[in-house]
């Protein structure tokens, strides 16, 4: 299916990451935004609201982030593609309904513009400290899909990708950006509507009295219907059977929750997108995502110039994690260097998936680290020289 031209602002624009995200949402067909004001994601909502009347979209500012995601889930069941945007503290409050979204298998997109935490942290300054929360933050077993853009153009592209994945797998998708990318202003190109591929919602098309809201189709995903179409369906956040009726036994728990996990795990090859550069002959590979990828690519070039064989593996999809690819590369390289704007989150996954075959050097950095590659370069040099280095953490000592 092609994009609805009404939401596509075709042309070349100079936009911030936040504004590009709002345009991506419109292009993807998003017609409902639930919001609660929070820095530094607010500009997405502001752009959305400004353009909503001409695009035909609806919005509501709720009383807190808990109710925001509840409203987004309700809106999604009316057939409207729905999203919300937030930042750290807001994401914490959304964990309750992230779980409900997973359990009710409701497509929606949650944009998280990460800011330094914990608690209030530094509202306007970037970080990547919510990565594990997005993956594990709600209680119980589930899988989540999370993407991480590194430029305004990618904010546009991956917002569309997030909606497409969300409809394809009937799952909430998180777009994990950060304040650096959100406030970065760059030129972006918005293509014509007919060049934008949109994943339509997978609807049930059978007899009204035969509809089962959680009966899995061949692709592992149950078909949806809209509120008001006369199906009189029931869905519950309790463990349920195909009819959506609660069943309190272990057998049904397995029947219900197992597919929530495997509908993602069975399709990791389709879901996962990574961008590799110069990994063929690399002895050291930088694994990065989001704003940090910008430093990674710069450091790679600089290190190559000084004769170190460095490659880059950029995670577009952070969750599910590209386990297979990292394990393959671990056998070929001396070390992975993992820069992150936090004190060690995705690096744990890299360590796990290396299975001891490669050293893992973690480079925590702040906002400065996106521009200044000194720490990263010294880590690369260390990784390239030593035959056997124990996993090291480069001390984060850039003063304020």
């Amino acid at each position, binding site marked *: 299916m092609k994009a609805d031209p009404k939401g596509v602002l075709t042309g070349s624009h100079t936009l911030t990451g936040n504004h590009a995200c709002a345009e991506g949402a419109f292009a993807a067909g998003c*017609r*409902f935004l*639930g919001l609660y004001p929070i820095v530094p994601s607010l500009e997405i909502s502001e752009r959305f609201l400004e353009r909503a*009347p*001409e695009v*035909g*979209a*609806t919005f*509501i500012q*709720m*009383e*807190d982030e*808990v*109710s*925001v995601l*509840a*409203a*987004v*889930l*309700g*809106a*999604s*069941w*009316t*057939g*409207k593609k*729905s999203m919300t945007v937030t930042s750290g503290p807001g994401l914490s409050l959304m964990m*309750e*309904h992230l779980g*409900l979204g997973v359990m*009710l298998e409701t497509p929606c997109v949650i944009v998280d513009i990460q800011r330094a935490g914990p608690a209030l942290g530094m509202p306007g300054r970037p970080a990547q400290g919510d990565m594990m929360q997005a993956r594990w933050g709600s209680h119980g077993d589930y899988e989540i899909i999370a993407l991480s853009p590194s430029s305004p153009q990618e904010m546009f592209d991956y917002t569309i990708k997030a909606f497409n994945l969300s409809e394809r797998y009937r799952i909430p998708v998180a777009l994990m950006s950060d304040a650096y990318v959100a406030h970065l202003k760059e030129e972006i190109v918005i293509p014509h509507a007919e060049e934008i591929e949109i994943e339509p919602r997978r609807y049930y098309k059978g007899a009204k009295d035969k509809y089962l809201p959680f009966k899995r189709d061949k692709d*592992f995903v149950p078909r949806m219907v*809209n*509120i*008001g*179409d*006369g*199906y*009189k*369906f*029931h*869905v*519950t*956040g*309790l463990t349920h*059977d*195909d*009819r959506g*009726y*609660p*069943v309190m*036994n272990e*057998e049904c728990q*397995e*029947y219900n929750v*197992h*597919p929530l996990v*495997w509908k993602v*795990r*069975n399709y990791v090859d389709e879901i996962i997108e990574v961008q590799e550069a110069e990994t063929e002959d690399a002895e050291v590979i930088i694994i990065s995502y989001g704003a940090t990828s910008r430093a990674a690519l710069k450091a790679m070039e600089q290190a190559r110039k000084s004769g170190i064989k460095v490659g880059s593996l950029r995670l577009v999809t952070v969750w599910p994690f590209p386990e297979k690819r990292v394990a393959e590369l671990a056998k070929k390289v001396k070390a992975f260097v993992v820069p992150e704007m936090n004190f060690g989150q995705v690096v744990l996954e890299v360590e796990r998936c290396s299975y001891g075959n490669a050293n893992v050097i973690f480079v925590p950095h702040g906002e400065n680290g996106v521009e200044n590659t000194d720490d990263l370069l010294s880590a690369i040099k260390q990784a390239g020289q030593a035959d056997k280095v124990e996993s090291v953490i480069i001390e984060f000592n850039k003063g304020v």
Partner: protein
Amino acid sequence: MKAKETKTKEIQSVPSKKGEIHPMENLLRMDRMPHIWCPSCGIGLAVTAFASALEKANIDPDKISIVSGIGCTGRVAGYVKLDSFHTTHGRPIAFGTGIRVANPKIKVVVFSGDGDLIAIGGNHFIHAARRNIDMLVVCVNNFIYAMTGGQVAPTTPLAAYATTSPYGCVEPPFNIPYIADSSGAVYVARWTTLHIRRLINSLAEALQKKGFSVVEVISPCGMYYSRINKLGDGLDMMKFYHDNVEIRHGEDTKNLDIGFQTKIICGKFVDRERPSYMERYNQWLSGVKGGSRDEG
């Protein structure tokens, strides 16, 4: 690894006598009966009244969605044959707000308990009333958290016992009609499960109302509230309602506090007009050049 294919057992529904049809079969999920509510509970009566009100108000069952939270009354959505959602604790109003704003053709009914709507969901309750979202909220008030076994609720009368108020409740309770009224609800009524005919009329009236309507249904909880407070069984509670309810339509909602085994004032207290959220939204939209919203 592929997920194992397992099948759940079919739930056995109660076999009915040949030719016997429940008069509300078109509005109830008969394949889910028997329900989970205890003997003497009033929630079933509230559901019956609601189903009758739907018929009385002539509401198209295809265009109505019912949302419940958690708790005994939270289970209502699961027994009513409408597009129904059993959501998280305290959030049905927020969930319903999303439905209503995204598709204003859908009438939203939130059916939940006092703990769900007034404690954990209290903030959503007052804000939905302030916005005047088109929504009927049926709040079944049994003065206690019953699903978890009888804990003190924001509606538990002073001095009443609960498992978490073993020496008597020390917190003054909320007066639900007063909160609804002062937050901006356009229709506020209170009935007990004894006043079925009046409750049906009130629910039917509220269903046709534009804006945020609240109907509080005082219900007996024989298993927890009555037992721990030694108030007898369901029938005794009904007798209590019969002897102690005073109907005062239009009473100032300030005067509707409920004490421990004191008089309960019922009636229709508020019935007024105020522009609803969608009316204001559409009015704003019509003033924007090229403004529109995708329907459906």
